[in-house]
């Protein structure tokens, strides 16, 4: 049987592979390094608040300028504070201890019962096309999470609308993907109609494109990448099946823009607020096109 032969070939092909002996060390070192950076970042804001230093929020959110690192500060972060002459002087401080993990771990890595599914992770959906129900399916990878909606709410059914939210490391990957859509392999801006287009959704920006997501058949997956502030990006996808039901390209774009407009953060992250569009679609006009190539 082909399946058995495949197993044999795969076994032969991977027989030489062995996990590196220092794999655990590398993983733990890398994870701690990342966590330390995050802790320092929080500590900068905390320390600034404690000593009454006026640090513009934008500076802290931008992270870089507020943290000084160098040979003398190995393992210790430093706050930039103005001295009497007004110049920036590094002030070392000890980062606070890491938070204690919750004693009651969650056994699942999805969101469990989300009711109508409109609030998941750290976002809330304000608008969905008529007739859709939560699919009862979600996934939570920590810095990326997703859920979807379909016609019958069947967990095993095909999705109509799916929203991925990218944060942390996943955000970087998502941004790189959008950049790859924006520019061709020579770094030129892609203005070809078959590529995506820059859009504004209320006071936020987005990128509208039909992605090829690896499946056979269909004409691709219309997707809206919505910038939800400096720490978050949403990827709103309409399945090729649902696209057929919507009929026209205009209807597809209208629905994507309305979903994007209604999508908001629930953790108070700045730059992520918007209004839920009216169910009659009258608000879709708020989503206007912006010059491409940004």
């Amino acid at each position: 049987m082909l399946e058995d032969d495949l197993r044999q070939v795969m076994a032969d092909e991977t027989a030489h592979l062995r996990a590196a002996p220092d794999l655990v060390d590398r993983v733990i070192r890398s994870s701690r390094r990342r966590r330390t950076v995050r802790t320092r970042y929080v500590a900068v804001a905390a320390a600034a608040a404690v000593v009454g230093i006026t640090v513009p929020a934008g500076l802290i959110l931008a992270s870089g300028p507020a943290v000084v690192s160098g040979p003398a500060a190995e393992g210790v972060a430093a706050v930039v504070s103005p001295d009497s002459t007004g110049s920036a002087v590094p002030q070392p401080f000890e980062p606070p201890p890491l938070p204690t993990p919750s004693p009651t771990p969650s056994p699942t890595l999805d969101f469990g019962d989300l009711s109508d599914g409109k609030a998941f992770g750290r976002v809330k959906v304000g608008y969905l096309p008529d007739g859709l129900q939560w699919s009862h399916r979600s996934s939570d990878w920590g810095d990326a999470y997703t859920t979807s909606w379909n016609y019958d709410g069947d967990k095993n059914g095909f999705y109509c609308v799916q929203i991925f939210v990218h944060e942390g490391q996943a955000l970087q990957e998502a941004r790189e993907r959008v950049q790859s859509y924006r520019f061709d392999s020579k770094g030129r801006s892609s203005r070809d109609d078959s590529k995506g287009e820059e859009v504004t959704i209320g006071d936020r920006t987005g990128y509208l494109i039909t992605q090829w997501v690896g499946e056979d058949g269909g004409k691709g997956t219309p997707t809206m990448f919505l910038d939800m502030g400096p720490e978050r990006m949403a990827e709103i996808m309409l399945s090729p099946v649902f696209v057929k039901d919507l009929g026209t390209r205009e209807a597809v774009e209208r629905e994507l823009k309305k979903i994007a407009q209604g999508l908001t953060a629930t953790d108070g992250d700045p730059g992520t607020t918007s209004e839920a569009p009216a169910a009659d679609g009258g608000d879709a006009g708020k989503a206007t096109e912006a010059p491409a190539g940004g």
Partner: protein
Amino acid sequence: MSGPEDDGFAAFVAARGTSLLRVAYLACGDDREAEDLLQTALERTYRKWDRVRYDNPEPYVRRVIVNTAISRARRRAILRIIPTHTPPELPVRETDVDLRHVLMDALRALPPRQRAVVVLRYWEDLGETQTAEILGCSAGTVKSQASKALTKLRSAIGAQSVEGLIRNVHA
């Protein structure tokens, strides 16, 4: 994370690291990228170890590996770093190495989700439902993707059946 929890994580990696590395390799088709995929997945697992360790962590790591591999493959397809792969011309099969290369090339040439389905179904021996859970799709989709993948593999290796070829080359 404390010392005993680190020990638990280290024990898990020691026990399952090689097996997970093989899944990563089959999902992406490249030694170096497989190591990077595995490390990325384990870093995520380590950060959530206080939650994951109470359950069986292996399915979680596997899920991260497979979905990250798919995500990267999609991005590469878009970036055109890897040109659209054309199944190789049928070579003269003189050795089992040739045959293995043909089948592995055909496996690499599958769309990322189909390749993931093949790896999870026929390498990891997961059922359709388990595979669907990992990929975030329906069992029906897994079934149809597996069927399409096998059809393509059969087509890539030619009209002659694989088992016959393998028997011949091992004879």
